[in-house]
């Protein structure tokens, strides 16, 4: 049974955005925020993750080039085919199994955007590698209040659901600021909203609040230094992390300045997590678009679901848990169900594409100026195979990229080669990343 077309009451959607808010308010604030912004529209980078592999046969188009036939999983994005690029055949070999028993899901989740084999541990020695989104954040985040924003849809209170020997951290996030610094992903729209726009007081009060935060952070630095001195070298890491966090927040307050104050006057915040999954997803994508549009950040990472996710998808008639069904055992009915989930995820993403395409930004739309990397870290999820990865790129990177084609890469070339190219398109240039061997033409 396919139950996707039930019209969601308009109010339910807005409910997510707050009891009294109306979208026009959001529109109204844009000029206030963007006024005085540079003439050349900024480039935005995004990364959206889909777990548990994908039904490759329903994803990979039969033909390469611009005139490919749309496939079932890509169907929801068909409307944007001139603004998207499909890339197939790449691999993330650090996700390959080496020997028996080595947490395939933790490994692929941890290596998606860094091409680094993660360390098997549940302890303080967590280790992956700095991810592409964070390399982007370092450059694109220079002028924005937030360097980057990390979002997710699945809360992580489920216990015992992670792989033996691997901390749940590896599947709770795919974004790493450094090898030992995983970045948490936020699921609550209210929290995201508050991070972006404060807690909604009038401008003067908000400015006073920022001033106060600054004096609080100033005085914290002293405490941290004191603690730092009193402990051994191995214990200093935590206080280093804390100190860096303090500096980041200070920097953010500085960069926010008056513009957030004007934004805060016109927006009210959302409450909690919407009851309906699709509302939650739409709202989080709305916030992602809003963060780009208000230039609060130019880098957003978004986890649609985590590896091993046990969510069932009654929305598309799949009552089995996602991870279970991904191990389809080559049964046709199971394959069809997994394909439905993959397609549904693309439908959720189409909401973002729509939003970005409809948001004017300088001489074009937000989508024109973006580069959103959509994908997963396994091809065949049944076999935990990090080969033949599904990739869709949305947007034109402000003219640096001409979208519209299906690019068939040399089979098993590193996915990191593509990540390097994608970063190039948003003016972030690296020599290498993880197991990269060069650059992938797109």
């Amino acid at each position, binding site marked *: 049974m396919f139950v996707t077309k039930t019209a969601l*009451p308009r109010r*339910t959607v807005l409910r997510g955005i707050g009891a009294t808010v109306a979208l026009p308010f959001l529109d109204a604030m844009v000029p206030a925020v963007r006024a005085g912004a540079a003439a050349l529209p900024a480039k935005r980078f995004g990364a959206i993750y889909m777990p548990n592999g994908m039904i490759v046969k329903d994803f990979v188009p039969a033909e390469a080039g611009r005139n490919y036939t749309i496939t079932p999983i890509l169907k929801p994005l068909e409307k944007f085919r001139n603004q998207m690029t499909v890339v197939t055949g790449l691999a993330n070999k650090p996700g390959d*199994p080496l*020997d*028996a*028993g080595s947490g395939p899901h933790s490994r692929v989740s941890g290596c998606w955007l860094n091409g680094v084999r993660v360390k098997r541990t*549940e*302890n*303080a020695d*967590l280790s992956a590698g700095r991810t592409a989104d964070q390399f982007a954040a370092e450059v694109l985040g220079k002028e924005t209040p937030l360097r980057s924003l990390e979002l997710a849809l699945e*809360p*992580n*209170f489920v*216990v*015992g659901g992670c792989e033996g*020997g691997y901390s*749940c951290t590896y599947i709770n996030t795919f974004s790493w600021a450094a090898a030992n*610094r*995983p970045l*948490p992903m936020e699921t*609550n729209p209210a*929290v995201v909203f508050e*991070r972006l726009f404060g*807690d*909604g007081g009038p401008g003067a009060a908000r400015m006073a609040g920022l001033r*106060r*935060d600054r*004096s*609080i952070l100033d*005085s*914290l630095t*002293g*405490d941290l230094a004191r603690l730092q001195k*009193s*402990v*051994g*070298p*191995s214990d200093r890491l*935590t*206080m280093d*992390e*804390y100190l860096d*966090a*303090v500096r*980041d*927040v200070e920097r*953010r307050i500085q960069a926010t300045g008056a513009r957030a104050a004007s934004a805060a006057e016109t927006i009210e915040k959302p409450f*909690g997590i919407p009851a*309906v999954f699709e509302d939650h997803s739409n709202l989080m994508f709305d916030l992602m678009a809003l963060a780009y549009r208000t230039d609060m950040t130019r880098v957003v990472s978004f986890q649609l679901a985590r590896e091993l996710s046990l*969510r069932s998808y*009654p929305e598309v008639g799949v*009552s*089995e*848990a996602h991870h*279970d069904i991904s*191990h389809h*055992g*080559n049964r*046709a009915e199971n394959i069809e169900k997994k394909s439905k989930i993959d397609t549904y995820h693309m439908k959720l993403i189409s909401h973002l594409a729509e939003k970005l395409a409809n948001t004017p930004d300088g001489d074009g739309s937000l989508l024109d100026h973006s580069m959103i990397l959509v994908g997963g870290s396994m091809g065949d999820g049944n*076999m935990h195979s990090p080969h033949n990865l599904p990739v869709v790129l949305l947007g034109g990177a402000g003219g640096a990229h001409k979208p519209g084609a299906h690019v068939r890469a040399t089979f098993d070339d590193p996915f990191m080669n593509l990540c390097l190219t994608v970063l190039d398109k948003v003016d972030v240039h690296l020599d290498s990343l993880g197991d990269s061997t060069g650059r992938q033409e797109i």
Partner: protein
Amino acid sequence: MKRVVAASGLVVALMLAVPVHAAQAPAAPAETSVHQALLQKNCITCHNERNKANAGRLSLEGVDVGKPADHPEVWEKVVAKVKAGLMPPSGLPRPEATQKDAFVGYLERELDKKAAASPNPGRTETFHRLNRAEYRNAIRELFGLEMDVTPYLPADDASYGFDNIAGVLKISQSRLEQYLSAARRISRAALGTAPPAPASYEYRVKESAHQNERAEGLPFGTRGGLLFRHDFPQDAEYELRVDLMCRLGGECDGSVGFPDEHTLLVLIDGERVTSFTLEPRKDMRPPQERTWKLRLPLSAGSHAIGVTFLKLPSIREIDSVIERFDRPYFLNGVIGQPNNTIYQPYLDVVTVVGPFNAKGPGHAAVRQRLVTCTPKTKAEQEPCARSIVAKLARRAYRRPVAAADLDPIMEVYRSEAKDAGFDVGLEAAVTRLLVSPEFLYRVEKDRPTAKPGTNYRLTDIELASRLSFFLWSSIPDEALLRAAETGQLSTPAGLEQQVRRMLADRRSNELIENFAGQWLMLRNLDAQRPDMPKFPNFDDSLRASARRETELFFGSVLRENRSVMELLSADYTFVDGRLAKHYGMPKIYGTQFQRVKLTGNRSGLLGHASILTVTSRPNRTSPVLRGKWILDNILGTPAPDPPANVPPLKEDEAGTQNKMPSVRERMASHRANVVCAGCHSMIDPLGFALENFDAVGQYRTMDESKKPVDASGTLPDGSKFDGFAGFRQMLLREPEIFSTTVTKKMMIYALGRGLEPTDMPAVRQIVRDAKPGGLKLSALVAGVVKSVPFQMRRAGAAAQ
């Protein structure tokens, strides 16, 4: 490895009963050769260097069985597997029981002897960030605030099955921003400062909540609705906005009205303050109004707000017919789809907006508790603020504080109070305190006198924190802090008295909620979404009742000083009306839980709907999940990881889909395949034992494929069982196995780190000490508290 024992370590060693065999002479060569022969005959065929990869990455070649203490990481594995009867695997030759016992006994003795001579308490990270639950409880303890800040706190990553593991509780910019924002919110509420603008707080009915019964805490004769407590910051006017489900509103597609008149009640602190009448619409057209507003003056402080419907007698009959599917957010088998076909109105959201026309912070209990002095002159202000901050800091930092602790906070006070006055300054100071690393982290610094790699005993102050975070998931209370300051925790009697007091205190419910909630995976119930068409009765109230049952049960074993084995064997449990109906128990109604005697099919934890549900798939039982769960949580020997590349099952390749195979038929394929059989012959039979319970824990005699349930099986050690009762008897035969598992899990939770092989002697000691008293669960808790790893710590690399 250094063999240094600091002198202070001996003090604790004395507190602990030295194992009787510790003084025995080294193993005689003759004894060693017997064990070596057993290894050769029963183990090394698989566990050798060449075959290691296929044998759980364990080789027993080249390790001297004469000196187990040299390789605890190898021999502790051997002890666990052999003791639980999981090795040698079924079908392979096994040593005689006496031989096996002698072998395991020998290994344990040798390992324990080494530990007694040179204990290794291990080392929890120096900085241990409070997790969400701990932070929330600390705030309640510090301010007496009702507000739940958890939605605004960063979520915690879990390791080793628990979310309080020091090593992975990290900080980052986004987390610090969340802490800052929570701190602002809390200090504002504690002082009763007006928010910068009228704020709104939304309280929402949960998506799958049944709304046809009386909700807990609301008056009899009402139907559904919400009851919540809210902290009102000031004496002021507040607006309550009540929204009904959207199907009643004009904006909803296909919405309908309802044929009867309904009355909506608003209650404040149990008193009915107003009611609204919803006019019937016989034509079933939606009513004009969907939102009701009420503005009323309220005093600052916490008030209970209730919003509910009067229950109509006439509805009752219809209830029984459609009750099963009648849920506001359930349509066509999809949870979360608004149901537009329901014949009566439901509450959706209550929003509290305010304050308006604020008259000041009033006399809210929360403020009075914090602001313990009232400065009359400007000159009195700063000393007053300082005394407030000092009191708060002592509790928040969980230790005596010095001027150096207070000065940076008072600096913030001064810079804010200068222009904006006492209240604003104090609010900033409280905010500052709440983002201090000494509040957000439990800090255990190495003793300056302890050389790197040596052991030292924790101070009483540090011990107090370990105790309160273990037993209460919170900061020490005044009594505990005082006991620590006066040295009472260093005496066995003083320590025991505190443990007893703390377990009796209701705050120890946190141990049940957080420890048992994670060990037994009760928390996962919230995320479990049983397939609606198959299990239409599964809803939020059943979810809540199932969880409550296990919590009450665990609590009763803990507080009534019962044996830990009763967790598996007890012939009693706790049910409310909802759960009784689910279990098929007659004549139990209402939302009150009562203790009931079990007859028949259920007894112990393994018969609880909670556990049976979280170990199932949404649409069917899973003997694999249940088997894995039992291996990990009951037998204490987690299943090995699945192989790197699972070959597709034969029958899958053929694509046989003609009929639904029974669970057992599906499982048979696991064991037909040689790569899978090694583990699944261990895992699956454990799960079969529970096959008489379906995916939501209801008793059944026919399985998903409409075949009679076959709950028989063979354990790896060859013993056969038929059904749950027989299986349970087998688990009870060797109490040491289960009690060791519980102790291990509790140690991880209590220490906030994973266990090392060197921790196992301490675990065995705890079990051994509890044995004469009948393995009481409370004795295991006390044993953890008294153990070397809990009382001591190993110093890390030197400070520079």
